[in-house]
């Protein structure tokens, strides 16, 4: 009897563990089943590399959106990662305990603010600044990148900080004992030792930035043209889906789902990099 019970529980645990496999499979099946036929109908090259997106006239090229997503993510990383790493250094090696009790929840709160609120903030605060500095409408690649850079800060800070804290204290103390300043010890002994953690932070940041929707939609301008400069507007794949899903029917809707498929593939690639990195660490 006992054995049967144990067996049943074992099976139950196993089934629960397999739910995540099931979930990923279901997502793949549903997205591919509704997205791939559309890609076939439009034509793979016309869809992926077409530069004209005018669903009402039958043009479905998402190349500008792919470029937009990549560029925005790139700028977000360039802005968010250095600040995030420096802030993590501050938290693990500079911050006095009393201040830490305030800073740590602050960073957590920054992570918890809904993205729509970030979007409003960007639209009312960052967009006018950008307009003043660079002219144009202020809604641009750069604006979206900066806003996303701020949004990925908590992710980068948290991951980097925990990997910095995992570095043995002896690294830092050894450097200090050799006569290095506090900064040199931190930046040239502890930080390099946390390299893989920092790389993980970057990849997580990229994942968050490329998948962000509600904030970008408000500050990017959403033009479906390949940006000529850093101050011209762009549309990302995510905002393309949210903007037009409500209206779309037929091939248009399938093309939007196909956009989701492309996004999904991007995320898969990023995840593969992440797990490859983890394996190397182990």
């Amino acid at each position, binding site marked *: 009897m006992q054995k049967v019970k144990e067996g049943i529980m074992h099976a139950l645990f196993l089934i629960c563990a397999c739910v*995540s496999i099931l*979930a990923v499979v279901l*997502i793949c099946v549903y997205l591919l089943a509704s997205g791939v036929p559309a890609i076939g109908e439009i034509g793979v090259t016309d869809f992926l590399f077409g530069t004209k997106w005018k669903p009402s006239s039958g043009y479905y090229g998402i190349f500008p959106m792919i470029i937009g997503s990549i560029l925005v993510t790139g700028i977000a990383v360039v802005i968010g990662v250095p600040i995030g790493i420096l802030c993590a250094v501050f938290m693990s090696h500079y911050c006095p305990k009393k201040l830490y009790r305030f800073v740590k929840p602050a960073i957590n709160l920054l992570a918890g603010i809904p993205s729509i609120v970030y979007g409003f903030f960007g639209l009312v605060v960052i967009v006018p600044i950008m307009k003043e500095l660079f002219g144009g409408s202020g809604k641009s690649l750069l604006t979206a990148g900066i806003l996303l850079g701020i949004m990925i800060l908590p992710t980068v800070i948290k991951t980097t900080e925990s990997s910095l804290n995992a570095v043995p204290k002896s690294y830092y103390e050894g450097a200090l004992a050799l006569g290095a300043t506090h*900064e040199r010890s931190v930046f040239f002994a502890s930080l390099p030792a946390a390299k893989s953690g920092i790389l993980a932070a970057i990849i997580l940041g990229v994942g968050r930035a490329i998948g962000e929707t*509600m904030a970008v939609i408000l500050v990017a301008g959403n033009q479906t043209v390949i940006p000529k400069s850093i101050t011209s507007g762009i549309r990302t794949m995510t905002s393309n*889906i949210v903007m037009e899903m409500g209206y779309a029917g037929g091939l248009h809707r399938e093309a939007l*789902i196909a956009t989701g498929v492309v996004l999904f593939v991007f995320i898969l690639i990023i995840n593969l990099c992440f797990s490859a990195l983890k394996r190397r660490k182990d």
Partner: protein
Amino acid sequence: MTDAPTAAMTNEKKTTAPENYINRVTLGARLKQYARSPLSLILMILVMLAAIFSVGMLIFIIAYILINGVPHLTAEQFDWNYTTENVSMMPAMINTLIMTALTLVIAVPIGVFAAVYLVEYAKRGNKLVKIIRVTTETLSGIPSIVFGLFGYLMFNISFGWGFSMMAGVITLAMMILPLIIRTTEEALLAVPDSYREGSFGLGAGKMRTVFRVILPTAVPGIMSGVILSIGRIVGESAALIFTSGSGHSIPGSLVGSGSSAATLTVHMYILSNEGLHVNEAFASAVVLLALTFLINLVSDLIERRIAKKKG
């Protein structure tokens, strides 16, 4: 910005507190060091600037929400029923509560059991375990809009549920599953092996050990995962707009016609859309912010308790 150096100075005084370092370094010695090594000085300034930027940004955003939202918080926004006159956020708050509860009811047992399997039952190097880990990681990386698309295709269209609360709940449950699995795994791994050995030694079976010894010990860790998930659910919008829709009232059923339910975040998104109720949208943002703050506070408390137990 002009007060940055002074702020840095005071910080630096604090960092030389005796509990942090083996050697007491006086401010003078510290300054002399910086004079000798400008690189260190620059790095120090950069670190301080980054910290000030991050925290400053948060204060800025919070101030922005409060200034725009607090003046528009009125008692009638907490009426039980939504009408176009009072624009009440109460139904949305209750919807958020119901959906959070349902999501947790679905996701927590599955997530915890999955973690139990991974930690307690699976053999090392098992191929299945590898696949489970990869898929869990994939799941945690999928953007919410893709979840939304999927939920819409599967539940709203294929299952014919229409915009329904249940569609949103299951989509959310899938989203938070990896988070629960990961935090539970960590909590289980932190349970000392001696507990297991003791339990086995007393003649308890594996199942008994798991339920009576290991899981109770891991409860605080699991709780912190649950709290993080609640935060994620409350802040979610992109995945819900296409699944549970924009219904302004508390639905009578979970699926089918009239079961659409907007959470507070979606409610805020809809209010802001047509430009008719932007002030009320900011008022909901204030409530949302307060909620987020509360959730963080609780998760902080739990984390501190875990740390105390360990220490």
